[in-house]
């Protein structure tokens, strides 16, 4: 069933795939983020309750939602690495980690910035922010564990195990933190229910989310390419590639 995926166990094919896909993600990122942010930050109607300060959700919500999905993607990459023993899977996992960590940090930062006008304080221990903080630590843990090993294959396996432990814990953490504190407003986008925000505010939000997905893809692929080059420096195809770029 996954036969189409198997060629990408080889780093050369994975590198080529990154090169092919990178432009698409880049364009999505640029267009999505520009349109979404400009629309949301400048043109969307003012919220009757929160005034203009609500506009930060156009940065906060995409980063918050996607920080979690990115962790799951990282854990899946780790899982693939453990089951099929692919080096490219481990490399993908560690390429995703810093991008996800920064995304989580952005969500924390913007969440705190949103909190100032809303609750009058720069930080509050509500369910969402606390869960994001814990997610941030989970990312840092995976990165720290990976960095502690000098043999990168062993590093990949260990970090993958920790990523899986983390991914199993994320729902538990979310449930427990939410249960611990229900101050944050309920979800503004639900799949089946009517969204509780107006459509004119929703569209730029969705576009921002799509743009952020593009951004994540772009950054991960760039990171993955670097990982591959760094670790495969002795391979003939890398040497040929470097010679070609030197000639240009």
């Amino acid at each position: 069933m996954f036969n189409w995926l198997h060629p990408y166990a080889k780093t050369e094919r994975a590198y080529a795939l990154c090169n092919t896909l990178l432009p698409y993600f880049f364009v999505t990122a640029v267009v999505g983020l520009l349109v979404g942010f400009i629309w949301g930050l400048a043109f969307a109607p003012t919220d009757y309750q929160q005034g203009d300060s609500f506009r930060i959700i156009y940065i906060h919500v995409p980063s918050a939602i996607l920080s979690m999905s990115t962790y799951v993607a990282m854990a899946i990459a780790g899982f693939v690495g453990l089951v099929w023993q692919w080096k490219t899977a481990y490399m993908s996992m560690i390429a995703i980690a810093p991008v996800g960590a920064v995304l989580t940090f952005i969500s924390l930062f913007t969440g705190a910035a949103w909190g100032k006008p809303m609750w009058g304080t720069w930080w509050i221990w509500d369910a969402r922010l606390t869960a994001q903080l814990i997610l941030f630590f989970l990312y840092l843990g995976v990165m720290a564990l990976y960095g502690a090993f000098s043999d990168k294959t062993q590093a990949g396996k260990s970090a993958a195990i920790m990523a899986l432990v983390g991914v199993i814990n994320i729902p538990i953490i979310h449930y427990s933190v939410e249960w611990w504190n229900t101050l944050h407003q309920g979800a503004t986008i639900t799949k089946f229910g009517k969204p509780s925000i107006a459509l004119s505010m929703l569209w730029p939000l969705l576009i921002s989310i799509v743009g952020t997905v593009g951004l994540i893809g772009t950054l991960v692929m760039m990171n993955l390419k670097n990982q591959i080059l760094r670790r495969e420096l002795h391979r003939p195809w890398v040497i040929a590639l470097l010679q070609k770029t030197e000639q240009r």
Partner: protein
Amino acid sequence: MNGKTSITSNYTDILRLNAQGLSCIKQDRILFEDFSIQVHAGELIHLVGPNGAGKTSLLRILVGLSEPETGGVIVTDAARSETASFSGTETPSENKIDYPLLYLGHKLGLNQYLSSVENLAYWANMHGIATDQHELYALLARFNLVGLEDVPSGQLSAGQQRRVSLARTQLLHTHVWILDEPFTSLDVSGVAFIQDLVDDFVAQGGAVLMTSHQALQSRLPVKTVTLEYRL
């Protein structure tokens, strides 16, 4: 890299361990690629190579502690698979034994707070073998450790600890010994003693694959397999 010299012996038609196409990558460096080795009964194989060539990594792959990048190892006469549960003693079939291999690596496997007798007893028990106190004392006496049997292992010298570790070769009924630098820390008489043990085992149909930086002073023919250092 394939040792192709054959030795004349009564047993060399029995294949104990067969490794084909092994590759090992450590720290993104290829240690060896497409390496094969066969160990037959009655063979004494000396694995040589410079420091860092990958001898220890190869031994660990043969024994099952590490996974190779490519290739596989087949051990004949294994009675149980590696994932066998601890419980239940199956009636062994005719030619199969529980432990076709015995591995003694760089690390001694002795806990410093336990005495030699205790260390040996626990090690044997872990392999499902019951031991008798008197047997163990007699064994340690053979290894020139009289009076030190009940001392915590951490207080023994390196050479004495090495001898306790090697005493385990006499506790397990097995076909192949895989020894990584067994002569480390041993004095001249210790080296001769262990070499005798190895020779006796091989003469009776066992097989030994070992590394050592010194040439082996064996009374039996020694097959040399070389692992080269790759950049």
